């Protein structure tokens, strides 16, 4: 087989209606929409990490330090004003992280549902409607969460929840309903299952597919092991340190001991950094591993030269390893490691974008094939 003709056999021999990848079909909507969500979530995360995260952490630290100094000076209104700022900065940070995480996770779920479509025992029309509802909810939740910081409680009938939160929760409800619907569809399929069905997509064993599958599994396992180590070695220790340092800060301020306050403030900043990098390394290793495994299944739909498919698979795995490892090294090597971690994230984004373009090319060829067939049919 020539390098350029790696288009899967399923399209060459059977019309796309039968491959489950028809134009605007549920599988296609979920695959393209899912990769779009992941790409947007990752780009947002990279931009957030470079331009907002560190600056925001600096502002939180500065406001906490100002609150501690105000307490030291016996200035109660100053304490409360600075804590209001801390709350606002933390909410800003928290909603940005939640936007990033939910967008990517919903993208993953969309890819999984795309793979499972042949086993969902509903009509194609019903599956398509479910896919649209899923994508609507999957965008509504992160956009709603992003807006929470800016909309606040304006015009809200509730005391604690604003309109942006309500929109986000509604988006989550839509995703939940579709997932539940997919479960019901699977159940319907299994109840009337006729043996012998094989989805051509899952039988694929190309070099890039195997590389992504094996590399992804290793990344997930490494992420698990790191998470288990971090929980065993650091979780309770960090929680105790968090409390002790805050007690030293406020106790030192109450006793008028400025040195104790400054020492505790410095230690608190370092502790927050240590907690953040360990959680980020654990979460990113597992998420990138899952992404690699999922993209392994979709390699037949990536219409690129085989050599480029292998290159992009390697780049995706390289970036997936670089990011969590360099995030961990940030504590020792600071911004240098942080920069390399961001580069790792960028590599993953580029590889995913290339695969997305490959899938778009594949869909274009499929649709052209269908149009040519229908023209031939009507001419007869």
């Amino acid at each position, binding site marked *: 087989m020539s390098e350029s003709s790696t288009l899967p056999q399923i399209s060459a021999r059977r019309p796309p209606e039968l491959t489950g990848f028809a134009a605007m079909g549920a599988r296609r909507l979920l695959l393209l929409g899912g990769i779009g969500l992941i790409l947007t979530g990752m780009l947002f995360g990279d931009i957030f990490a470079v331009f907002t995260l560190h600056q925001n952490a600096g502002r939180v630290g500065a406001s906490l330090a100002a*609150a501690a100094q105000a307490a030291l000076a016996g200035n109660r209104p100053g304490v409360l004003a600075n804590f209001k700022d*801390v709350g606002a900065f933390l909410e800003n940070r928290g909603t940005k992280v939640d936007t990033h995480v939910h967008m990517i996770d919903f993208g993953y779920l969309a890819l999984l549902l795309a793979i499972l479509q042949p086993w969902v025992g509903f009509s194609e029309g019903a599956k398509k409607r479910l896919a649209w509802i899923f994508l609507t909810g999957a965008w509504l939740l992160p956009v709603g969460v992003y807006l929470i910081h800016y909309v606040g409680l304006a015009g809200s009938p509730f005391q604690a929840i604003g309109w942006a939160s309500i929109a*986000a*929760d509604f988006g989550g409800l839509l995703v939940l309903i579709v997932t539940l619907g997919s*479960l019901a569809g699977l159940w319907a399929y299994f109840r009337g299952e006729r043996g012998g069905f094989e989805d051509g997509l899952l039988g694929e064993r190309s070099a890039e597919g195997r590389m992504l599958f094996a590399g992804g599994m290793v990344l997930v396992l490494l992420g698990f092991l790191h998470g288990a180590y971090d929980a065993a070695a650091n979780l309770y220790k960090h929680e105790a340190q968090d409390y002790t340092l805050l007690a030293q800060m*406020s106790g030192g301020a109450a006793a008028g001991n400025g040195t104790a306050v400054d020492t505790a403030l410095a230690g608190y900043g370092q502790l927050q950094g240590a907690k953040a990098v360990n959680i980020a390394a654990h979460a990113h290793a597992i998420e990138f591993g899952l992404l690699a*495994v999922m993209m392994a299944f979709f390699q037949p739909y990536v219409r690129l030269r085989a050599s480029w498919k292998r290159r992009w698979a390697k780049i995706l795995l390289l970036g997936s390893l670089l990011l969590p490892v360099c995030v961990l090294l940030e504590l020792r090597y600071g911004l240098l490691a942080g920069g390399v971690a961001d580069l790792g994230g960028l590599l993953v984004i580029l590889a995913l974008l290339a695969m997305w373009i490959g899938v778009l090319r594949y869909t274009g060829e499929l649709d052209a094939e269908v149009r040519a067939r229908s023209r031939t049919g009507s001419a007869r």
Partner: protein
Amino acid sequence: MRGSRRLLIVGGIALAVWGMSYGLWYAVFAEHQALDSIGASLAGSFAAAADRNPAVVESSLARYREAKYIYDRQVDVHGHWIGLAMLLIVLGIGFDRVNFSERWKVLLAAGLLLGAVVFPLGVLLQTMSHGPAPRAIAIAGSGLMIAGMVGTMIGAVMPSRGAA
């Protein structure tokens, strides 16, 4: 579709639905209150420090510690249930690459599903009891997940029975 694959896929989606329902409930009814409580108790301790009132400093910090302990775990539970559910579905989809007998694959799948349910459950139980039992449950769950992952990888690299 074979039993082991079905167990992982259906169990994974059911767990994802459960994790999302928990997250939705938490976001609507508990999260804002928890964040308010954390912020108010921490601000209260520093304000008491400004008033030179060590007793209130201590009691406010104790409230902060408890609220933060519960909040961190409740968020972790939501994230881990859904994350592990997605992993189960992915493993289920690729389970035909695991070259064990179906009986072993069902055992492996059951272990993974049990681990994915029990690990976050143990973390959730820690918000109700500070004793060793919830921690033991969480450790057992994560151990099952890691063992299941290692087993899956071994099965995936083993030569298939048909390939001789």
